């Protein structure tokens, strides 16, 4: 093969590569745009619209499915918003709070769901794909780099930040374009709360017992702790009163969690260190019956209604304490 032919091949390859890179770059921009238009994505919605809630509910799927802001508002007389996201860990929660505070006035209270499960890597995760379109923001970059280094490494290649988790993203892009075309401003779940399914016991407890007949000891993860602390500090820097809370656990599951109390004590110690509340609901009647639950931690619609009612009353107690007692201490 002569030199000219090799040169022609190299030229063709380079040309193809340049075209491909340009296409991928364009596609990446389209995805950025579409994801920012999707009001069903909380990261996009809270940065696009003013919510300005007085109370923020935050955490993974338990608060997402269990706490109705509409019900809470009736009890407290304040405006609340549910910022929780399914399967999210504290790093995920931290970034969503960061997004919220970028575009909204700081709420009075942040209720953050913290349980022994939250501290264990076997439960929930950092959902990198939720932040793909925000890479470039130094805060987002640093969290993504720390929580998903494999992804972060490849995200520098054009479009790879979307290609890597495309099964979680493509649908949101199409929905974003639809929202843009339809000038939609209100998400499907306007106050962030996703009501639980009516009656479904999901058998997780049975599977759990089968897997761990002698019970499971929760493990305390340092990265989870770090982002829990960062979330508390971020809120406190904005003058937000932070309340950590644990929802009632189905009583029959407790014998299979031998170190639950020990981990709860560690969470309490952490709460004391940052001078924040840690609310527990151990004595609640609903914890005694499966009829209020979908799984060990997730209540069904009736259980959620009862729990939200109880939480609302506790919030009123905190508000009263802050308004009338604390100033005199």
């Amino acid at each position, binding site marked *: 093969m002569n030199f000219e*032919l090799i040169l022609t091949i190299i030229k063709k390859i380079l040309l193809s590569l340049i*075209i491909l890179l340009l296409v991928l770059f364009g*596609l990446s921009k389209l995805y950025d745009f579409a994801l920012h238009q999707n009001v069903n994505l909380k990261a996009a919605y809270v940065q696009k619209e003013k919510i300005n809630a007085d109370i923020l509910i935050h955490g993974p799927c338990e608060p997402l499915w269990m706490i109705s802001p509409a019900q809470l508002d009736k009890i407290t007389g304040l405006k609340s918003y549910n910022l929780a996201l399914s399967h999210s860990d504290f790093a995920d929660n931290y970034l969503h709070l960061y997004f919220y505070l970028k575009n909204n006035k700081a709420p009075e209270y942040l209720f953050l769901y913290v349980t022994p499960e939250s501290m264990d890597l076997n439960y929930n995760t950092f959902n990198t794909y939720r932040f793909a379109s925000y890479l470039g923001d130094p805060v987002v970059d640093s969290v993504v780099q720390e929580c998903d280094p494999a992804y972060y490494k490849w995200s520098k290649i054009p479009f790879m930040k979307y*290609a890597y988790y495309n099964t979680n993203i493509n649908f949101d892009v199409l929905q974003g374009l639809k929202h843009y075309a339809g000038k939609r401003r209100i998400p499907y779940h306007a106050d962030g709360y996703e009501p639980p399914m009516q009656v479904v016991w999901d058998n997780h407890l049975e599977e759990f017992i089968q897997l761990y007949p002698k019970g499971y000891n929760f493990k305390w993860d340092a990265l989870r702790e770090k982002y829990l602390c960062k979330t508390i500090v971020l809120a406190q820097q904005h003058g937000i009163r932070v309340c950590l809370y644990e929802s009632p656990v189905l009583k029959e599951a407790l014998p299979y969690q031998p170190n639950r109390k020990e981990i709860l004590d560690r969470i309490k110690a952490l709460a004391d260190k940052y001078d924040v509340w840690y609310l527990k609901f151990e004595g609640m009647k609903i914890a005694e019956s499966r009829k209020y639950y979908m799984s060990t931690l997730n209540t069904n619609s009736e259980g959620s209604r009862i729990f939200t009612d109880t939480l609302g009353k506790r919030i009123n107690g905190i508000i009263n304490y802050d308004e009338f007692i604390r100033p005199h201490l």
Partner: protein
Amino acid sequence: MVFNSVLFLLFLLILIPVNYFLPKRFRVTLLVLSSAAFIGYYNVESLVAVLVFSAFNFYIAKRISGNRALYIAGVLINAYAIIMFNYFHATRNGFDFSYTAISFNLQSFIIALGLSYYSLQNIAYLTEVYYKRLQPQTNLEHYVLYASFFPKVISGPVLLPGEFFPQISTNTITKEKLVSGFNRFLFGLFKKMVIADRLSPAVHSIFDFNDAYHGLTTLAGAYLFTIQLYFDFSGYTDMALGVAKMLGYDLKENFNLPLRSTSVSEFWRRWHISLIGWFTAYIYYPVVYRLRSYKKAAALIGILLTFLISGIWHGIGLTFLTWALCHAIYLGYELLTKRSRITLSEKINKQFYKIISVFIVFNAVCFSNIFFRAASFSKAMQLIKNLFTDFLPSGYLKDVLAPLAVGGHQLDEFNFYSTIVMLVLFLGLERRLNRIATSEKINVIFVTACVLLIFVFGIFNNGERFIYMQF
């Protein structure tokens, strides 16, 4: 280092230009070293195994001519190696003999990479030399390359010695070969990442959980597994053939539109062609030849024996034996009813007969594949029971497909249905796409579309290993 990994792409990016510019006399050494690196990257045991077995077969072949005892010993040792390495899995407590069917647990990955494939090649080599149809190799390096050539070492194609050794001396790399190899590799990557891996969750949901689904849902799961297996394995083969071509070698085709077969015998001429070719040459023909006086019974015994050995080659469990038995029954039936089927085909519309035949063959293959994929025989029986109970849902068609769109959210449904749309489009255009993928010209639309679809729809994180890697 699997074919669908970035590390492998980097490996190729260095190897192909180096091989291209290297003087011809050094290429074999380079490919042997690259193959050693490729296999050794999995584990050292695999590398040691391929080297030891290559040396063993190379040296005994020199003394095998006319020595029946040595020939039988050589064949038995290679066959024993397949059984030893395929069924003894490394566990934390040492070695464990596994009776299970396909294990998708990556922790129990077979320790000797590709051994069951190159052992078949070794047996073929010893047989050819023993019967004096081939001169024994004089160059150990060439023999090691035959056994360990990395594009085919993981899952074939199984090459007969006469198909590989002549290529070592005539090895040439042209621009056309590079382009054609690149097209083929990209096409395989697309099949694997965009179709096979995206079907995996749906198949997993039907085969690996204990939920009792409607018959139609189970049937859809069985269809999807056959399609997943086809795209996974033919995708791998496309990549293997593409890489080999870029390195100057032509490997044997393994697939030829098998899902359009109008009979099971035709299916086996179009599916895993190299393996069935090996079984035909070294098991079926010798058996039929020896029993030729029994006429049709000889063919039936040959079919049964060939498929039983093929089943054992895939795995010792009852599932693989039942799978093999299904195919032996199908082929036996076809052999015995050949004349009446020809008469029937002449009486009815040809196109209609073809459509019905394709439908029946596809269903027969999918049925047998329930045993191939199920984690145990009892699980396979449970799935078959599901097939015949409560076939249609009382509600909507959506309920049938819901368990396949794992997760049940709009996003999961989008992922599932978009895969089905791409799959249907692909199958409709398959002939044309195959032509483009084997072409020696760069088709900009094809390359751009493949790359874009891989980026937009391909599974990058936690992509599945190739299914046939475990055999």
